[in-house]
């Protein structure tokens, strides 16, 4: 298939995925109100635990007493990566549910191209969610997110996502072989929650601080918080960008090769059509 044809397949997959989503009205309702509901537990939790949005221990670790913007940024970025991990990693499982996986694998299209289409759909959905979250954070919760900051933030987010989707493609390969990956994705989700600064600064423990250096999300979150909360210029974040680009290359190539290997293993084991 030519590059142009592959682009058309990615778009066809995107259209198909969105078409299926649209046929479940309750999903659309949920996604419509999810950005409003997502923030409230943090606000209530803050009030219950420290009587508001300010915390002295938090200030000692980060330099700022207000922890809500910190958590909101962590949550917005993690929305992107977890939706990718669930959506892309589990997408071939969904094809076995429809019974269409065999027909995709038997076609001249590389299944990775299909996964890229799923990635696009998940990215768009996550973006819609994050835009709503960002609007709520900006207008109601005091996060200083100006237009000028959006471009550098998106650059960091994209650098994070490229590698992450490579990782998700490898996960899709595992789904082909072992069918059930919910346990693995959940475990991974909690590894990220535990060892990267999504909800708290990793400086709280020397273990979390050390292990967080292995997770790309850590670098992205530090950079994005630097841009939004400390008005850092993207040029000053070149070291973070180089680390993310390096991780992207490793994760993309590694993810692709692992997927190819796992697809071949599945064809040898004869389990492609198994549900």
């Amino acid at each position, binding site marked *: 298939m030519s590059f142009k044809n592959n682009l058309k397949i990615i778009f066809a997959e995107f259209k198909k995925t969105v078409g299926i989503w649209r046929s479940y009205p309750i999903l659309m309702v949920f996604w419509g109100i999810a950005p409003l509901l997502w923030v409230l537990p943090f606000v209530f939790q803050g009030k219950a635990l420290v009587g508001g949005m300010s915390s002295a221990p938090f200030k000692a670790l980060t330099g700022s007493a207000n922890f809500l913007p910190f958590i909101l940024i962590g949550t917005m970025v993690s929305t992107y990566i977890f939706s990718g991990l669930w959506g892309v990693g589990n997408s071939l499982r969904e094809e076995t549910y*429809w019974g269409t996986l065999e027909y995709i694998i038997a076609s001249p299209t590389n299944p990775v191209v299909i996964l890229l289409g799923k990635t696009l759909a998940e990215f768009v959905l996550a973006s819609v969610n994050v835009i709503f979250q960002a609007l709520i954070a900006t207008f109601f919760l005091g996060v200083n997110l100006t237009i000028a900051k959006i471009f550098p933030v998106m650059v960091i987010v994209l650098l994070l996502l490229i590698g992450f989707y490579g990782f998700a493609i490898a996960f899709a390969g595992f789904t082909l072989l072992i069918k059930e990956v919910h346990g693995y994705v959940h475990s991974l989700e909690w590894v990220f929650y535990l060892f990267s600064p999504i909800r708290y600064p990793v400086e709280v423990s020397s273990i979390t601080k050390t292990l967080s250096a292995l997770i790309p999300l850590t670098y992205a979150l530090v950079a994005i918080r630097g841009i939004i909360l400390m008005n850092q210029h993207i040029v000053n974040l070149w070291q973070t960008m180089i680390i993310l680009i390096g991780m992207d290359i490793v994760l993309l190539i590694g993810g692709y090769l692992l997927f190819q290997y796992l697809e071949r293993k599945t064809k040898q084991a*004869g389990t492609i059509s198994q549900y």
Partner: protein
Amino acid sequence: MNNAIEVKDVVKKFKRGRRLKKRDIFAVDNANFDIPEGELFGLLGPNGAGKTTLVRCLATLLIPDQGSIKIMGKDISTHSLQCRRQLGLLTSGERSLYWKLSGRDNLKFFAALYGLDGKERDMRIEYLMELLDLKDVQNERIEKYSSGMKQKISLARALLHDPKVLLLDEPTLGLDPQFSRFIRIFIKETLNKKERKTILLTTHYMDEADELCERIAFINRGKIVDIKTPYEYKRDLPHTEVLELRCSGIQNCDELLKQLQSLNTVEKTTSNTQDHVTNIKIILPRAEPILSDTIELVRKQGKILGINVEQPTLEDVFIYVTGTRLSEDTAEERPAPQD
């Protein structure tokens, strides 16, 4: 004439059993056959015989452990993409489409996978919808289709890219007689006779294979047992009659079959019990000389509900050649020999 499909010494084994007691099961055991371009070739065997495994190997969904497969002269292990472009696949069962999308949107998606788009795609879909009588329902969601309509859409998908070779795996399984008839006529008259497509059709319906196929390979327990035309199979059967008895109350069927087998000139005996009714088939040159002895033997064990003497069908030939009924399930019964 060139071969459209060449299968040479193909072996596919699967591991079965629990961790420490895993053993190899031969799903396909040294399969060999060629199908010339334009032929409608049948693969006939009971459930679990290895038909679907063989089709999946041909469709590049499974990698054989040994042997080679060529599609239109290209080896699938080295030219899998070119081979896939030449292949159209249809499997049995309703679950192979996006039920939440319309028939037309399903076809549009799968067309993209074969590099079809724009006017070319729309014209092809239009043509197939017309051909398969689906125009009126093309914009309805698949979930509203009947089983037969879903199978028609699946057939349209297999034909989207106008492939030279079609792999049809039990295409009429579970369909009502009206849709089965339509699909059979479509396969024979339109796809094979008019469009000259090479078709590999798997089935366990002997009348379907008999009606449609130019040649038929009997497959049993993973092995291709024989390949002939339906006429040759029947002609070469060294007997001419099948004595069928419908009985009830048979306590020891194996013993009864042994006794019947010992009667003069009896070639083969098989039985099948459902809902306390046992159907016994006796294959032999002439039924009349042993009729009274047979009745006497059966009456010792139970009651005779009906007797029939018929000319052999392909099913009788299959029983004669393999000793297995087409309705039997033979999966998990063929462990690989120990090294």
